[in-house]
C-alpha cells in the first residue's frame, strides 16, 4: 500500500525525513560529482587529514552513528573528534581504508541530494596482513555550497551492531 508522503516538518533534523516520493535520481554529471566528492572525502580521512575531511561537512553538519549515543554536531566538533580518532590509529600503527560504493543518489531539490551507500573498511597493520574491518551502510544529506558538495547530515549504521 502506497502511503502519501506528508509534507516534512520544516524543523525536523535533516536526513531523518523520508525522501519525497517525487525525488528522482540525480543526473549523470551530479552523480559523477558526488562519487568524486566521496572518493576525495574518504582519502582525506584515511590519510589522517581530519580537518580537511571535516571540511566536507557544512558548518552546522551532523554526524550520527548507531554505535554512538549522540550525534556529533558542528564541523569543528566533528573535526576534533575525528582528529582524536585518527591519532589513536596512528599510535597503533594501523592503516584503514574506507571504501564507499553502491551509491544511490536522489535529487531532493536543486541544491540538495539524499544518498544511500555501503561502506567497507579495510584494515592493515604495519608489516601485517589486510583484512575487512567493518561493513556499514550510510545515508547523507548533501548540499551544494560554494560550488562543491558538503554533508549536512550523515548517518552511519554499522552492520551487526
Amino acid at each position, binding site marked *: 500500500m502506497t502511503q502519501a508522503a506528508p509534507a516534512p516538518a520544516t524543523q525536523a533534523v535533516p536526513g531523518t525525513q523520508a525522501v519525497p516520493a517525487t525525488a528522482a535520481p540525480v543526473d*549523470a*554529471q*551530479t*552523480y*559523477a*560529482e558526488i*562519487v*568524486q*566528492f*566521496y*572518493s*576525495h572525502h*574518504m*582519502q*582525506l580521512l*584515511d*590519510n*589522517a*587529514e581530519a*580537518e*580537511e575531511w571535516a*571540511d566536507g561537512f557544512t558548518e552546522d553538519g551532523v554526524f550520527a552513528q548507531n554505535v554512538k549515543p549522540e550525534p556529533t554536531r558542528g*564541523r569543528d566538533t566533528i573535526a576534533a573528534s575525528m582528529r582524536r580518532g*585518527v591519532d589513536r*590509529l*596512528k599510535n597503533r*600503527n*594501523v*592503516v*584503514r*581504508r*574506507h*571504501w*564507499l*560504493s553502491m551509491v544511490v543518489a536522489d535529487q531532493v531539490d536543486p541544491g540538495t541530494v539524499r544518498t544511500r551507500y555501503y561502506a567497507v573498511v*579495510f584494515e*592493515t*597493520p*604495519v*608489516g*601485517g*596482513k*589486510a*583484512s*575487512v574491518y567493518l561493513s556499514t551502510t550510510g545515508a547523507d544529506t548533501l548540499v551544494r*555550497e*560554494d*560550488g*562543491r558538495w558538503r554533508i549536512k547530515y550523515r548517518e552511519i549504521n554499522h552492520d551487526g551492531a
Partner: protein
Amino acid sequence: MPDGGTRAAPYAGTAPVPYVDGALYGDIERFYARQVQLLGEGDLDRWAATFTEDAVFAQEAQAGRVWTGNAPSERRGRAAIVAAARGAVAARREAAAVRRYLIGMLRVEPAAGGSLRTTYRAVLLQTPKGGVPEVYLSTTGRDVLVRQDGAWRVRHRVNSHDNAPAAGPGATTATSATRTTPTTRTTRTTPTFRKDDDDG
C-alpha cells in the same frame, strides 16, 4: 585568473575541490576496470598497451620478511613492466591461485599538458583453487595518465602497499596542490620484493 572569485576557498585553510566532468570521470573508471581485468586474466599483451612505451612503475612496499624477493622497486619502460608482470602471472598459475584487483575511491585531477593525475585505493582478493578468498593486500595508487593514439595510458605509477611503514595514516594521496610533475619518492626500502608481488 579572470573571475577567479568564485573558486575562493569557502573554508579557511582548505582549497576548493574541483570535480572533473562526469563523462571524463566515467572514461577513467572504465579504463581502470579494463586494465585490472586484463591483468587478472593474465592477458599481458593487451595489459601492456595500457602503459606508454616509456612508462615508469614504482612500488613502495615493505622490505624484509614478508616481501622478500628480488624484483626492483622501480621498473622503467613498458618492456620491463610487462616482464615483471609475466613472472608474477606465471607464479600465480603455478600456485593455482586467482587474483582479482579492485580499484575504488578514484580521484581524477587535470594536470599539465592534458594529462591526468589519479589517486585511488586498490585491493587484491586472492582465491586458491578450491579455497576461500582472502584480502591479500590493500594498496594506494597514484598515476599519471596521458592520452595517446586515442586511448588513455599510464605514464607513471606509484603503488604503495598499506603494510609498508610509509603507507601509514600520515601518507597522503591527495597532494596535487604541490605536485606538478610525476615524481617517484625516494626508495626507502631495500629493493627486494617477492616475485609474485610484483604486480601489486
